């Protein structure tokens, strides 16, 4: 049986790992390559590196970073942040990334998803969605690292993206991100059970039972978290042992 995946996420700014709460108040959490290698050794099933650097030098530095990660890490990793063209992706894959995640650029130009899937295959195209539940109860898509609201509904956009060729959805609930109060189970479940591609739940994982909930109740294929790992609140071997005890299929460390 396919194992549920535990995925630490490393937000990168200017070459360092950072983490904020609800997308703001960034704290430094160390060297991303060292941290990634440590997680791989501890039993992480995959890693996600999101570059939130916003400089013109970004492309080159991201390639160099990806190259360094690929040389030090022996598990799969996804790279995201400001990717907007086939050429961007080609360079990142050549430097050793396994998958790339697209967000704002894909929303603005959905054809990008189609082009990437045709060029590199769906298995390497991850659609990242930042979503927030508004007072009307609907989940809306946000762009630009959560700064720009759109009128698009999360499920509709995810469905369209999958039809265009996205092979996986990385779903972040902005309501839950950084709160450590648990994942957004309802919207995760909706995507995970109604779309034919894997869904990675992100945002809100703060206790080991939250991971049980997101796998069992929300049917997520993978769960992503950042600060609980970076700040050593939960260790991956401990989390995996706990999940195993709850009869959730995981890859033993």
């Amino acid at each position, binding site marked *: 049986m396919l194992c549920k995946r535990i995925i630490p996420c490393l937000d990168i700014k200017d070459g360092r790992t950072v983490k904020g709460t609800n997308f703001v108040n960034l704290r430094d959490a160390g060297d991303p390559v060292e941290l990634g290698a440590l997680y791989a050794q501890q039993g992480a099933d995959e890693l996600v590196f999101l570059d939130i650097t916003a400089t013109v030098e970004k492309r080159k530095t991201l390639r160099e970073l990806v190259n360094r990660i690929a040389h030090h890490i022996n598990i799969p990793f996804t790279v995201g942040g400001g990717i907007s063209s086939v050429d961007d992706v080609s360079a990142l894959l050549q430097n050793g990334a396994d998958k790339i995640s697209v967000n704002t650029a894909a929303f603005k130009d959905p054809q990008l998803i189609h082009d990437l899937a045709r060029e590199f295959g769906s298995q390497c195209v991850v659609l990242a969605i930042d979503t927030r539940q508004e007072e009307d109860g609907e989940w809306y898509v946000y762009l630009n690292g959560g700064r720009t609201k759109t009128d698009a509904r999360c499920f509709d956009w995810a469905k369209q993206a999958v039809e265009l060729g996205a092979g*996986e959805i990385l779903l972040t609930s902005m309501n839950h991100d950084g709160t450590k109060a648990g994942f957004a189970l309802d919207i995760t479940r909706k995507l995970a059970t109604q779309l034919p591609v894997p869904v990675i739940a992100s945002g809100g994982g703060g206790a080991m039972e939250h991971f049980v909930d997101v796998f069992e109740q929300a049917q997520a294929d993978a769960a992503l978290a950042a600060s609980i790992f970076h700040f050593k609140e939960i260790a991956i071997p401990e989390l995996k042992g706990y999940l195993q005890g709850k009869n959730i299929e995981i890859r033993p460390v």
Partner: protein
Amino acid sequence: MLERIGVKAMAINDIYGFNSCNKIILPGMGSFDKCMIALNQSGLREELEYQVQSLKKPFLGICVGLQMLTRSSEEGVEKGLNWINGETVRFDRSRLTINEKIPNMGWLDIHFANKQLLSDNLQDSRFYFAHSYHVKVDKSENEWINAYYGYAFVAGVVSGNIYGVQFHPEKSHKFGMQLLKNFAELT
């Protein structure tokens, strides 16, 4: 990854590069057609076929690099290398449950159909897969490794000095490094 297990490795950019190598790995990244076209246009194909088929240098295809060994793929229209009698097909949705998504993305147990080959220290091992297509071989003698996703599928093929794996040993942590080591130590 090969350097980490103490194996010298180089990327081959021209036909002379083959002379410095006693084993060859063909990784695949991208769609079937893109990879076949890239290989055909690289100017390396003829020499690669000579190295593998005539000189019998041990060869390992990974992911699309495995699928390219078959004669065709449902993912595209290009002809494959046809070194292994078989074809590449999309996962059969009708045989998967609702919880078995396509792509198959993540870690699966593998089983050696042929336990004699490169299986040292790989009992109860898991590997990382990321694929929507898998190979079907005409003859069971070419089955090397199986895995199960909705149904049993061929996750590794073998034919003499030619090996191919659907999963990514380079991304499969300790077991992946062990498999690469087993391949590197082939004589």
